[in-house]
């Protein structure tokens, strides 16, 4: 490892690992991103699974990818186009060619470019031959065979050995970036702790890949300078894990047991899985028979004094709408996590979209206000899940937390917070003998919040339910005027939450020609596009919404500084509709993409420029 390298310094690099579902690309990508983070780079990643569980091997439909973006300043997206593509077979090359930068590096497993595989992938002829890939730097390594060579002394069957060929590639890429192998070696040791031969094989192959690249000096290698990252302990976290953990953290902080009633649905299932795994923290997960049972068991648990949540995606939210109304009128705390995906109907279940916003705001019968909050990065799913819990418990209200497929599956290094530093969460559970004139719907002080008397507490027996209730007593009431009073109390309760959320901030000047507006999962792309434009001298400001309903108190003020406002969304303009009806006085335009994909920086920059 002593030969001198020609090293190119880069601000940021995008790498995409791709191969068959079975090729271990997710693991490879994760290892590379964690190692990069460990070595001080910023990282943003996004996996790209096939729609089928196991699409036929070697076909384009079966390609699994993992894209990552590392930088020495903050990177906020996994990147539009790849500087480096790893393609473990012809199908992976086919599927990803349109996503490589001109002049980018392509690493392929030469051994896999057989006639049969080329056919399956739909290549007329071998793209490695002739001038087809002339605009790229192609590194065609015999990965499959060198993997076998590396393990020839081990007593392992060839098909077992073949499974570690992803380590060969990883080794090559590590060399390209002058990465150390230790982190991954440790990982291998833990992962296969019970199978020493496999540990050996993987480590051998990893080194073999590294050495292969080293020896051939195939190309110059890269360096992405360490980022100036704030001190602390870090970990990688995906949006869904962050959401689950944010809920668990809210439970712990409030001193309540966590209860999640849920039904599996892509791309939200991992929230349930994470919480099912946390029996050690006392979390109860109830895998219900459907989404309605998911939310209704949670409502029951909330009635019984738990910190209750339910998790789903669009079609499941549609099924929960009726029961959300019950939580609204019974004024019980509840978090409804909705991981948005492409619709309508089953739509594009594995793809991302922001098209459940109006459903979250309005998808219920009657005047039925519930808080709506949206996370905007994989890691801040933690914060917004936590805050959703806080708002639900402190205000006795259901809160809908919107994330999306892009956030859910994407991951980012994340500075681990200390529980002691998170804001307090108070709940309104009434203690025995605390109140000798308890009434189920009496409001606390000036607020619209009612107390939470839970079964088992002596002296506060009472009945709640879905029928309109008399103010204060909570008894069933058909009195016309009372219905109006209660409707406005429920509305006021949500409006009061404005005072509990942070003011909306502007990234850039607070006055100008154009304000770019986003909400939820598009943050990374929007902020990157805006920053790049500003660096290029374009004067544009940006504001991104996490608190959707109620909106921050200063929203109108923020918007009023600009001649034009462009709202960018991965849908057909739902936030635009909402903003128009909330603040009709402003001049809005819109940019929308409905392809099941996140924005690209390129298109955003162009759009923004066109709007100036």
């Amino acid at each position, binding site marked *: 490892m002593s030969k001198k390298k020609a090293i190119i310094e880069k601000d940021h690099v995008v790498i995409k690992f791709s191969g068959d579902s079975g090729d271990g690309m997710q693991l490879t990508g994760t290892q590379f991103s*964690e190692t990069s983070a*460990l070595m001080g780079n910023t990282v943003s990643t996004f996996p790209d699974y096939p729609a089928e569980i196991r699409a036929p091997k070697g076909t384009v439909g079966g390609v699994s990818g993992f894209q990552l973006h590392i930088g020495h300043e903050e990177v906020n997206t996994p990147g539009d186009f790849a500087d480096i593509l790893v393609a473990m077979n012809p199908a992976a090359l086919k599927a990803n060619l349109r996503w490589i930068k001109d002049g980018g590096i392509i690493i392929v497993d030469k051994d896999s470019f057989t006639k049969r595989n080329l056919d399956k992938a739909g290549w007329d002829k071998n793209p490695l031959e002739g001038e087809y890939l002339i605009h790229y730097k192609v590194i065609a390594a015999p990965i499959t065979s060198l993997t076998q060579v590396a393990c020839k002394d081990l007593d392992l069957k060839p098909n077992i050995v073949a499974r570690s060929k992803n380590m060969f590639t990883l080794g090559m890429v590590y060399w390209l970036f002058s990465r150390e192998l230790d*982190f991954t070696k440790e990982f291998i040791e833990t992962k296969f702790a019970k199978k020493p031969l496999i540990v050996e094989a993987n480590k051998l192959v990893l080194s073999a890949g590294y050495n292969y690249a080293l020896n051939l000096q195939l190309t110059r290698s890269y360096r992405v300078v360490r980022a100036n*990252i*704030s*001190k*602390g*302990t*870090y*970990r*990688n976290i995906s949006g869904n894990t962050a959401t689950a*953990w944010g809920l*668990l*953290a809210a439970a*712990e902080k409030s001193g309540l047991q966590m*209860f999640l*009633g849920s039904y599996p649905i892509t791309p939200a299932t991992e929230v349930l899985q994470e919480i099912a795994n*946390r*029996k*050690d*923290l*006392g*979390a*109860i997960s*109830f895998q*219900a*028979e*459907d989404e*309605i*049972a998911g939310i*209704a*068991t*949670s*409502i*029951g*648990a*909330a*009635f*019984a*004094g*738990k910190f*209750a949540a339910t998790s789903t995606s669009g079609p499941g939210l549609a099924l929960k709408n009726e*029961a959300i*109304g*019950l939580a609204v009128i*019974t004024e019980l705390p509840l978090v409804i996590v909705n991981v948005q995906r492409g619709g309508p109907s089953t739509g594009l279940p594995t793809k991302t979209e922001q098209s459940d916003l109006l459903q979250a705001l309005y998808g219920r019968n009657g005047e039925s206000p519930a808080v709506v909050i949206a996370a905007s990065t994989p890691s801040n799913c933690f914060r917004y899940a936590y805050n959703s819990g806080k708002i639900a418990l402190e205000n006795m209200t259901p809160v809908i937390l919107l994330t999306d497929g892009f956030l859910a599956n994407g991951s980012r290094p994340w500075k*681990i917070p200390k*529980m002691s530093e998170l804001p307090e969460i108070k709940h309104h559970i009434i203690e*025995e003998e605390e109140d000798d004139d308890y009434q189920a719907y009496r409001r606390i002080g000036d607020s619209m919040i009612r107390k939470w008397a*839970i*079964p*088992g507490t002596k002296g506060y*027996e009472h*009945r*709640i*339910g*879905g*029928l309109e209730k008399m103010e204060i007593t909570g*008894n*069933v009431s058909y009195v016309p005027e009372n219905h109006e009073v209660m409707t406005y109390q429920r509305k006021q309760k949500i409006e009061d939450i404005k005072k509990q959320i942070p003011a909306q901030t502007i990234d850039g000047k607070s006055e100008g020609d154009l304000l770019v507006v986003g909400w939820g999962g598009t943050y990374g792309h929007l902020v990157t596009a805006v920053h790049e434009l500003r660096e290029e001298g374009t004067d544009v400001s940006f504001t991104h919404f996490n608190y959707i309903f109620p909106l921050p108190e200063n929203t109108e003020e923020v918007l009023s500084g600009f001649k034009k406002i462009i709202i960018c969304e991965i849908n057909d303009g739902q936030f635009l509709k909402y903003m128009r009806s909330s603040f009709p006085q402003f001049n809005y335009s819109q940019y929308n993409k409905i392809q099941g994909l996140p924005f690209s920086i390129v298109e955003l920059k162009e759009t923004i420029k066109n709007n100036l």
Partner: protein
Amino acid sequence: MSETKKYTFKDFKSDQEVRWCPGCGDTAILNSIQKAMAEMNIAKEDFAIISGIGCSSRFPYYMDTYGFHGIHGRAGVIASGVKTANPKLSVWQITGDGDALAIGGNHFIHEIRRNIDLNVVLFNNEIYGLTKGQYSPTSEYGLKTKTSPFGTIEKPFNPGELVIGAGGTFFARGIDNNVRENQALFMEVEKHKGISIVEILQNCVIFNDGVFGYITDKKEKLDRQLFVEHGKPMIYGKEKDKGLVLEKGKLKIVKIGEDGITKDDILIHDANELSPILHYQLASLKAPEFPVVLGIIRSVELTTYDEAVHAQIEAIKAQSKIKCMDDLLHSGATWEVE
């Protein structure tokens, strides 16, 4: 949980006026439950009464306990949530034939499958009362109602069969006006660990009046009802001379004193038998060929879901290295930036 005191049934009456139609069977059921609860030696605050929507589902309002009048069909799942959250509560699900078996049918079979320790009282009036008289999944074939002006063409469910098909551990049947019998029944229901389903044949005086008249007929009822009791022979009839025997695996009526049959030939009811085969048959028996079976038809004990949830949590807690959120946050691969 708090200490219990001696109650009378009046302690269980809330301040809300009972608004069922005069003569509605619901009122009698309310009385028998209030009387039973007063005897259960359970603190009032430890009862949670959960219902869906329907006439019967108004029930919680009349009880001075914790109560939740849910949404239509969801009584079972709200109750499942309450009990799973807090197994110490005595959770009663009050539901109708529409609420439990039409819109709520799925939750019904799943709560049974999970064997959550709930006490479920199914008010079966074979009609949708609250919406003013449409047929329900238990309405007799051919019944003329507002939505079946020419008679239904749907076979009804027999709730007992469904309970057993879903793996139920407890099934009992009663009749609304048998307040004393029902009171005793509800005491047993509370004692049974696991989900207890009690079907009460309930007369809706407005939309399905007299539907159980054949069975409850004062003069003939001894011939048309068979009260089963665990460990006792299944004998019935005005003269206590009829009984059940098994023939090629099927139940059959015999007459004591005829064909050499004696009391000893009559089947002894074993409610606690794990196999549900006989229970299924007892639940199925239909008038007029057979008497309708009342009382506890099946009562076996298996681990309950709510118990198991908490036991699993305790077991994992004891063995996991992760004790709090900070531990979790730092688990797995992490790195320091200095």
